[in-house]
């Protein structure tokens, strides 16, 4: 019991005698369903939404126009040169893949750890992952010199009988990222099935009923279906868990396996994974804070959620800070004391 008076919506204090509330306010199943479904079922869109949509549509249009210009003119438009052969596109790729890791961590790892509070945020966090991976996947494809042949990176039986080179970390990337995309989409979609069914059952128009119904795959909510759902979700979560650590490690191999000084370091896999979780959680918080304000979800996505996210953010920021420090230290050591020499 603290002596500080906390606001009513603050459920961040831990009372060892009681389980921390997962949501605040007076809620039962019906009101929770109402709060969540109302976001999708609100009639019409507000002018603010249209304004925001126009802005993003404009930026997306600019994106596609730029890609078109890139395809027609050539890879030189990225501004890289020799020796900086990769530049913005690969930086962006690594950035977005890293961001996606947070969603999978919340969906899969927190699920396996029985952190029930993650239920409020896992759907849009996983959605963020799916879109982040989609975003990331674009860049390795468009940064290559001859985009029309980028499918040669896929291991398919070609009439030329030439397979891609499995020694290359870029190819490991192809496998890691495509696996990650597939598993993320499956995890996201599987988790959504009962929710889509709820929306289907509450649907006002026939179009909505048909659309939600198609994706709900005939969910009836029977005990058997819930049981199967639980097992499937557990299985996918277990499958997705190692991906959180492996995907960005493989992406870091793009750099660590090369022999360039500064890239060829063993700290890169944990550094990248810590960085991924760090930036990914930051992205989830960036989405969470406006979402709970605009969509009235403050009861479901509470201060405790933000507090927990921030704790993870702090922990990973320390790891990334350490990695930065190590990089600086190694350069300093080499410049002051010379390259390490063998005893011989």
């Amino acid at each position: 019991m603290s002596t500080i008076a906390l606001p009513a919506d603050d459920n961040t204090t831990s009372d060892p005698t009681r389980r921390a509330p997962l949501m605040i306010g007076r809620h039962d199943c019906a009101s929770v369903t109402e709060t969540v479904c109302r976001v999708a079922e609100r009639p019409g869109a507000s002018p603010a939404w249209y304004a925001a949509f126009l802005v993003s549509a404009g930026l997306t249009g600019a994106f596609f126009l730029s890609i078109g210009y890139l395809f027609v003119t050539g890879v030189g438009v990225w501004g890289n040169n020799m020796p900086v052969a990769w530049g913005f596109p690969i930086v962006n790729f690594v950035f977005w893949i890293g961001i996606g890791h947070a969603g999978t961590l919340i969906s899969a790892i927190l699920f396996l750890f029985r952190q029930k509070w993650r239920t409020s945020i896992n759907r849009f966090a996983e959605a963020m992952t799916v879109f982040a991976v989609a975003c990331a996947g674009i860049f390795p494809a468009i940064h290559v010199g001859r985009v029309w042949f980028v499918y040669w990176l896929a291991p398919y039986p070609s009439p030329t009988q030439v397979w891609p080179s499995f020694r290359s970390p870029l190819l490991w990337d192809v496998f890691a990222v495509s696996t990650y995309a597939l598993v993320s989409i499956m995890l996201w979609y599987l988790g959504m099935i009962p929710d889509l069914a709820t929306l289907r059952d509450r649907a006002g128009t026939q179009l909505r009923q048909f659309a939600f119904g198609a994706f709900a795959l005939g969910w009836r909510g029977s005990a058997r279906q819930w049981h199967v759902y639980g097992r499937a979700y557990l299985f996918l979560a277990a499958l997705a868990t190692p991906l959180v650590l492996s995907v960005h490690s493989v992406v870091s191999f793009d750099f660590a396996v090369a022999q360039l000084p500064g890239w060829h370091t063993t700290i890169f896999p944990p550094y990248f994974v810590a960085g991924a979780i760090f930036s990914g959680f930051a992205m989830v918080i960036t989405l969470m804070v406006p979402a709970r304000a605009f969509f009235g979800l403050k009861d479901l996505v509470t201060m405790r959620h933000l507090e927990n996210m921030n704790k993870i953010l702090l922990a990973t920021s320390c790891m990334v800070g350490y990695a930065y420090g190590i990089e600086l230290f190694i350069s300093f050591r080499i410049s002051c004391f010379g390259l390490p020499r063998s005893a011989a």
Partner: protein
Amino acid sequence: MIEPLYGGKSAIEVLATLLGEEPSEGSDLVRKHFPMVLAERRARSEPQASTGDPQATADRTERDTETHWRQTLHDGLLAQSEWRVLEADDLAPPEQANPESPPSKPETEKLEIVFCPDARLLDGRFANNGWLQEMPDPMTRLTWGNAALVSPATASELGVEDGSLVRLDFRGRAVEIPAYVMPGQADGSVAVELGYGRTAAGHVGGLEGEVEPVGVDVYRLRTSDAMHFATGLTVEPTGRKVRLATVQDHYAIDAVGRRARDQRVGTLIRETTLDHYREHPDFAKHAVHHPPLESLWKEHEYRGYRWGMAIDLSKCIGCGACVVACQAENDVPIVGRQRVLQGREMHWIRVDRYFRGDPGSPRVVMQPVACHHCELAPCEQVCPVAATVHDAEGLNVMVYNRCVGTRYCANNCPYNVRRFNFFNYHKKLTEPASEVTKMAYNPEVTVRSRGVMEKCTYCVQRIKAAAIEARNGNRRVEDGDVKTACQQVCPTGAIAFGDLADPKSQVARAAARDRSYAMLGELNVKPRTVYLARIRNPNPRLGAADRHGVTEEHGAGS
């Protein structure tokens, strides 16, 4: 020899037409004149006319003339038409220099200006040649423009740095030219290169109203009484900066960086004095300490030809002829000033130039660097589509039609010799006006499209041509059958290329020398190109300054 382009006429044919003669081929005109040349020579040596039947004499003369003509054509010169050899007594003694007019003392207040012919454009006659405009100057490494070279001390006095636009005032005339801080330039002396700023050179060099002139015209400052150098120059910084299209030293480097670079250059370009070499003949092999080099997998055994190259740094003068020769042989594009500014020059071989020691009076070291065709090539391991592979003769083969353009190979090359076609640099070839330009391309070499990586191939087209001839003749390729373009044109013969499997070949003997070393060999890439360390022999009277900074045996030089 090719047919005259666009049905053009040579100068002699035009002259004949102007003189009212029948239009005829140049060869006929010369043939018609030939008997007169012979008769004149005969008249000089045999003043008396020969006797006998005039008709028979005429016939015989006609046959002789025809034989003589064919012989002259075959030899390329008229026999016994050389200049008379003069004996030394024939020459008059040289005029004594007038002892009463010694060279004028330089005014201490003003600077000296020195006019130099450009290393590539000479006096400006080659300003329309793109290859030469893009060829980096051996010392300044500048392309597509000239600069005023000032010494570091003078530069700091004047307050100029690389790229500062300065105003050169000389005898009432002025030009604005970017400055370049040149280590080793004499203090108080500013050197400028001639041949730039042309307004009627052409579409490459500069055309008034159409194409921006390349560089700055310093002929404006040059007068007939000061053709080469003179004092009386003032240099004033204008405060503006111009970007210099350099292929090295892109950014200013601080003292810490310079020290680190000096350390590393000593391991890349290994050199020593003659005395030190005599004491430690294999100093070059021990310049870098590293753990024993082992490989993760079983290495390939090469049977058959083992192509390799040895570059003797003692012979290399850094002229850069190899750069242009490679460009000519392999259809390497020029990219223009803007792209060189972005660091996208396409030269397959480059000649690195480093200054070592005191910036005021440094030593210069040069090193030609092209693809080393490493046996354990880092580039091959990282290509996702296997577009760069190794052939059985040791060549690192770049497969243009498989390359997707991920550029991982370029990142992983420790020598940074891979070049990428960021744009379609040969786009002009598709235009109808390029019918003639296409003829400059080597038909034996693929012209690369955009999005494809390229690099030195050890002139694989020449290797294959020699191998085919050798196979047709049922023999092996002999030493000297294959000459790479860079080797062919090197004026000092610094580059040796051939079959390392043949112990008697030039390259095998060079590689077996105690002076030979592999640059960055400690990375265990096993390059096929080795360097022969440079041996200096400074005059002891030059003092300790020149001995400073040679590669020492243990660890990096100072």
